[in-house]
């Protein structure tokens, strides 16, 4: 950026005098289309902003391996969560690369690695484990006041993982994975025989609706969410049972029953019981899911519920609706986009972590 013109400086001075500060926006950090955490070849961890052309616009250091991030809706500011069972999250100023705040989980809580902002960006919601009680919680943080913790809500289930906000309203949807863990046993799953995952919708601290799977699928842990333009919630699952599973992808809308997406036995099997990430197209028609274990991306028609396409890509996990297509990322450094306008492939030397987060 060149020297600021006298005219612009005067203009800024005028704004300052009038009590207005021009706030930086995502444009000031190179218009990233999405964020992703990554590991660098030297083993250090970063949070990256990536443009629609799949170029890396910034790479800011993280203190530990990240999981997902939450992008502030207006300010160029991202919250990066440590992976489960981390007890901290860092708020990063994407202009300066500095940490603006650190969120420490309260005593007896740990984060699950996902969070979501309110529509105006004033509140941040985080999924947490009240591990002595074995109950899921939603932490509420004041993003306008230095990320002070101001409240805590019940998540409507056990083991909440992903959390998203429905469009045009303040309703949150939470994937309560159903799996009880306690940090004193690492990531050991404590309640597989009795787990009961659900989708819970939460408004201002109240669970307004929950949706559960049919009883024979109670070992299908609902983990990751993508929200469509009409408030439809696509969810990806991870099978904890023995033997084959019927479906790993579902779609739900407030007030309606869950619909499971179907593919052939072989198609389901190729996902190795494990959906790592999920995205839904901007028009809500197509759902994309990834399985890093299977090394497979699959696409479903959200209307018919049928599998429409699939592809293989080693250690693919991150997936995001971008333009009229989808972007995916892999642990082996690949970033790929495929849409109506064509395809882009970029090879980096970063190991891209689980999720791509829209800005």
């Amino acid at each position, binding site marked *: 950026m060149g020297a600021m013109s006298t005219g612009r400086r005067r203009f800024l001075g005028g704004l300052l005098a009038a009590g207005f500060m021009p706030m930086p926006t995502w444009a000031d950090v190179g218009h990233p289309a999405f964020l992703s955490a990554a590991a660098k070849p030297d083993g250090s961890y970063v949070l990256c902003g990536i443009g629609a052309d799949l170029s890396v616009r910034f790479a800011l250091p993280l203190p530990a391996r990240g999981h997902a991030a939450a992008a502030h809706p207006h300010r160029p500011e991202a919250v990066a969560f440590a992976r489960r069972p981390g007890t901290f999250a860092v708020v990063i100023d994407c202009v300066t690369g500095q940490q603006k705040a650190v969120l420490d989980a309260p005593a007896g809580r740990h984060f699950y690695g996902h969070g979501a902002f309110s529509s105006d960006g004033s509140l941040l919601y985080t999924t947490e484990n009240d591990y002595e009680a074995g109950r899921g919680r939603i932490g509420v943080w004041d993003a306008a006041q230095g990320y002070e913790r101001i409240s805590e809500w019940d998540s409507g289930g056990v083991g909440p993982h992903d959390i998203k906000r429905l469009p045009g309203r303040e309703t949150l949807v939470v994937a309560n994975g159903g799996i009880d863990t*306690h940090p004193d046993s*690492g990531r*050991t799953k404590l309640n597989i025989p009795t787990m009961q995952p659900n989708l819970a919708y939460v408004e201002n601290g109240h669970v307004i609706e929950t949706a559960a799977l049919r009883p024979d699928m109670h070992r299908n842990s609902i983990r990751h969410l993508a929200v469509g333009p009409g408030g439809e919630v696509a969810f990806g699952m991870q099978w904890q049972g*023995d033997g084959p599973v019927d479906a790993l992808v579902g779609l739900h809308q407030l007030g309606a029953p869950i619909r499971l997406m179907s593919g052939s036995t072989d198609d389901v099997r190729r996902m190795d019981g494990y959906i790592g990430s999920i995205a839904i197209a901007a028009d809500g028609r197509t759902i994309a899911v990834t399985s890093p*274990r299977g*090394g497979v991306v699959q696409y479903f028609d959200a209307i018919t519920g049928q599998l429409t396409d699939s592809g293989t890509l*080693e250690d693919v*996990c991150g997936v995001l609706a971008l333009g009229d297509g989808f972007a995916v990322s892999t*642990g082996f450094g690949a970033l790929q986009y495929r849409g109506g306008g064509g395809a882009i492939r970029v090879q980096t030397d970063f190991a891209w972590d*689980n999720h791509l987060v829209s800005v």
Partner: protein
Amino acid sequence: MRRTILALTVLMAPLGAFADTASATIKDIIDGHILPRFETLAAQSQLLAATAEQDCDPTSDALRTAYGAAFDAWVSASHLRIGPSEVNDRAFALAFWPDSRGTTPRTLGALLSEQDPIASSATDYAEVSIAARGFYALEFLLYDDALMAAGDATYHCQLIQTISADIAVTASDILAGWQDGYADTMLNPSEAGTYRSEEEVLQEMFKALTTGLEFTADTRLGRPLGTFDRPRPTRAEARRSGRSSRHVVLSLNALQDLALLLTGDDAALSETLTNRFDRALQQIESLGDPVFASVSEPKTRVKVEIIQTSIDAISADVSAQLGPKLGVTAGFNALDGD
């Protein structure tokens, strides 16, 4: 949270010469590793049930010896979470641990204080909370200061007999599952079967090895280690019966056997892994601490940490060297589990 650092660059390896011996390896593992373990578990569990029928005094040598032998057999098979052990939660019914919230003693306490008649038969008892079944529940009744003497003596005796009988039924069901079908399922992969190729069968066995190593390092050792500021010796596995360290040894012995069978005729890798296992086992022996009480003292705690590090090193070698031979990718995301 401590995690094993894994190489990011392990790529899918073509199955070369190894494929020729894959079916022999599978047969060796089923006949020489899996079936004998479940046969021993079934036999020792029958013996435990029979002994409990004769003598249900928690302090009885005969009962405690039979219990120890059956529990040994379980720990030596506990990494084989495949097929028959997963049907009807049989493995959980034998081993509900870790029990982070104390459900096992709480449920047993309630049964004893209410003299719940569900304990009158093993068939009925299969319906109680899974936390009150199996070897860890029985340990409370035989060794816990409070629960070994709690409740009415006749009911306590019956509870010991019923839990023992339930263990015997479960162990015999697992063995039957292997003998009457699952061994054949693994020996004869087919397009329509549970396993479509020998590669998939070997990968399932490999997964048993890696998750077994992780469980022993992260849970059997990780639980008592806690954090430096807050060690948790009372969270050691089966500490009441003084079996914590013994379980680490038994599991490592079993995992070494499986690792070497999976390694096949790769002499160099066999040697590497043998050295790794021997070192970890040697470290446990020289620690000489059956219940990991030493985690509380900084000077001795480090010795337990070193054992954990040694097991992590086995895991790293297994992932980096054995995994690729079996066509297992070690992706950054594939291993994440979130």
